[in-house]
C-alpha cells in the first residue's frame, strides 16, 4: 500500500529531481576521471556489467519479473558480435548492432514463452531456456565449443577510429553506456514505464483497468534483452573474446547479485552493484573458489538484511529518489 502511494507521488513529480541530476553528474564525472587512477580494462568490464545489470533491473525492478536466464541474451549477443567482427569482418559498431539485434529476437521468443506463467515459474522457465541455449552454444560449430571465439579484432570504428587504442575504446564504451542508461531512465519515467510499475504492484488491477499487461510485459522483456545484448556485444569487442562463461547460468546469477547489491528498482543501484561485484571478483581473484562462497554469503545477507541494496538504503536514509 505504502509503495503504491510512493509510485503515485513519483508519477506526479516525473521531472528529473535534483538528487537524480546530482547523482548523474557525479557518475559522469567519476567515469571521466577514473581512467587516470584505475585500469581502463577494469573500468570497461565494470561498465559492460553495469549496463547488463541496468537492463536486468528494468525487468525485476520495474515490472517485478525475476529472469534467471539473462545470460542467454548477454552470452549469445557476445557470440554473434564476436563472429560478425571476426569472420564476417564487420566494423565494431555493426558487429555490436548485429549482436544486439539477435539478443532482441531471442528476447522476443523467450519472453513470449516465459510470460505465459507467473511468479516463481517465470524464473524457472527463463533459467531452463537459457540452459537450453547454453547447450546449443556448447554444440554449435561457430561458437568454438570450450575454446570460445578468441582473438576477435577490435577493428576500426566507422572504418575510421582504431579501437585497439585503449582511450578510443574506453570512450566508445562510455558513450554506449551513457546512451543506454539515459534510454532506460526515459523508459521508466514514461507513461509506458508507469504502466509497468502498475503491473508490478497489482497485475490483476492493471488488467481490470483495461491494460493488456501481457503485451507490456513482453515489450519490457524485449527491451531488457536487447540492452543486455548490447552489453554482451560490447564486452565481446572490448575483451576480444566470447566464451561459454557468458552464457552459463552462473552469469545469470551474477547479474541478479549485482542488481540486488546495488538496489532493486533504483536507477543508479545496478551501476553501483556492478562496480562492487566486479571489483570484488578482480581483487579477490587469488582466493579462487572462495569468491563463490563470498558471493553466496552476500546473496544471503542482502536478502535477509539489506533488501533495498546500497543505493536503496542511501535513498531511504536521505529521503531522496535515486
Amino acid at each position, binding site marked *: 500500500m505504502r509503495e503504491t502511494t510512493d509510485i503515485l507521488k513519483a508519477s506526479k513529480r516525473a521531472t528529473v529531481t535534483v538528487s537524480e541530476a546530482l547523482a548523474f553528474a557525479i557518475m559522469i564525472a567519476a567515469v571521466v576521471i577514473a581512467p587516470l587512477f584505475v585500469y581502463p580494462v577494469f573500468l570497461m568490464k565494470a561498465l559492460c556489467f553495469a549496463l547488463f545489470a541496468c537492463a536486468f533491473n528494468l525487468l*525485476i525492478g520495474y515490472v*517485478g519479473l*525475476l529472469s*534467471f536466464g539473462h545470460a542467454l541474451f548477454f552470452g549469445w549477443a557476445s557470440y554473434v558480435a564476436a563472429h560478425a567482427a571476426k569472420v564476417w569482418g564487420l566494423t565494431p559498431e555493426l558487429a555490436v548492432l548485429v549482436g544486439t539485434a539477435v539478443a532482441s529476437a531471442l528476447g522476443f521468443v523467450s519472453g513470449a*514463452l516465459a510470460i*505465459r*506463467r*507467473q*511468479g*516463481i*515459474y517465470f*524464473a*524457472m*522457465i527463463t*533459467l*531452463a*531456456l537459457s*540452459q*537450453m541455449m547454453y*547447450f*546449443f552454444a*556448447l*554444440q554449435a560449430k561457430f561458437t568454438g565449443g570450450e575454446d570460445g571465439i578468441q582473438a576477435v579484432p577490435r577493428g576500426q570504428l566507422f572504418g575510421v577510429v582504431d579501437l585497439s587504442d585503449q582511450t578510443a575504446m574506453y570512450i566508445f564504451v562510455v558513450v554506449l553506456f551513457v546512451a543506454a542508461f539515459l534510454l532506460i531512465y526515459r523508459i521508466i519515467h514514461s507513461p509506458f514505464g508507469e504502466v509497468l510499475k502498475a503491473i508490478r504492484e497489482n497485475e490483476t488491477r492493471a488488467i481490470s483497468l483495461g491494460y493488456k499487461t501481457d503485451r507490456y510485459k513482453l515489450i519490457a522483456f524485449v527491451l531488457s534483452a536487447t540492452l543486455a545484448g548490447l552489453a554482451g556485444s560490447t564486452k565481446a569487442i572490448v575483451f576480444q573474446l566470447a566464451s561459454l562463461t557468458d552464457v552459463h*547460468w552462473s552469469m545469470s*546469477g551474477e547479474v*541478479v547479485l549485482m542488481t*540486488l547489491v546495488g538496489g532493486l528498482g533504483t536507477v543508479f543501484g545496478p551501476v553501483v552493484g556492478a562496480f562492487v561485484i566486479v571489483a570484488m571478483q578482480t581483487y579477490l581473484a587469488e582466493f*579462487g*573458489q*572462495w*569468491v*563463490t*562462497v563470498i*558471493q*553466496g*554469503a*552476500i*546473496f*544471503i545477507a*542482502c*536478502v*535477509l538484511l539489506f*533488501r533495498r541494496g546500497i543505493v536503496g538504503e542511501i535513498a531511504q536514509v536521505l529521503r531522496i529518489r535515486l
Partner: protein
Amino acid sequence: MFEIFGYPSTQLFGQLLLGLINGSFYALLSLGLAVIFGMLNIINFSHGAQYMMGAFVAFLLLQHLNIGYWPALIIVPIVVGLTGVVIEKCFLRWLYKLDHLYGLLLTFGIALVIEGVFRNYFGSSGLPYRVPESLQGGQNLGFMFLPNYRAWVIVFSLVVCLATWFVIERTKLGSNLRAATENPTLVRAFGINVPRMITLTYGFGVGLAALAGVMAAPIYNVSPQMGSDLIIVVFAVVVIGGMGSIMGAILTGFGLGVIEGLTKVFFPEASNTVIFVIMVIVLLIRPAGLFGRTA
C-alpha cells in the same frame, strides 16, 4: 540379440534403463520441490546442492568411518535433513511474509555457499563410490543386461515416491499438511503447530534430495557440481508437470527420464536439450503444466 527400428535391442533397452534411472532422480527431486513449495511457498534453489551433499556425506561416511551404503541410506537423509531444519530456522522463516522471489534468491545464495565450500575441499573432479557388495553383478534378461544396483535404484525410488504420495494424500498427517497449505491460520486455530510442521516439511524435502544423492553416488561420480546442472533440468520438469499434484510430479519425472533416454538412442545430439524443448511445447499448448491448476 534382435533389432528394433534398426537399433540393437541391447542399446535401446540400455538407454531406456538409464532413462528410468535419471527419471527416478527427476521424480525424487521434483517431488521434494513440490512438497516444499506447497508448504513454504518457496522454490528451493539449493535442492541440487543438498542432493550433492547427500552423495558427499555418504562418501565421507564410507571413507572415514567405514559406514557402508545401507546404513548411509538412513543416516544421510537424517543428517542432511537436519541441516535443512537449521536453514529453515535461521534463514527461511524470515521470508514467508515477503515476495516468493526472495526465497528463490536466498536459497540460490545458500546453494552457492554449499557448492563453493565443497569445491574448495574436494576439487572439481569426481570421486568414485563403489556399489554395495550385495547389489554387485546383474541379471541377463536375454534382450539386455540388467545391473542389480540399477534395478534397485528404480524400484526403491518408486517405493519412496509412492510412500510419500500415500502419506500426503491418504493419511491424517497428510491431510493436516494439505489443510495447512490451504489456510495456515485456520489450521493453527485447531491447535496444530503449523510453524513446526513447516520446519519439518522443509527438513523432509531436503532429506529426500539427500536420499537421491546417496542413491546416485554409485552411478555417477560424487562431485561438487553434480547438483547444479541436474536442478535446472528438474526445474524444467516441474514447469512441465506443475507443482499442484504429487502424483503428477512423480509421473512427469519418470516419463521425462524415459523420453530423454530414448532421445539418446534416436537423436543423441538433442539428448541434453530434449526436456527443455518439451517444456517449450507444453508452455505453448498447456501453459499451466500437464497436472497444474491455473494460478
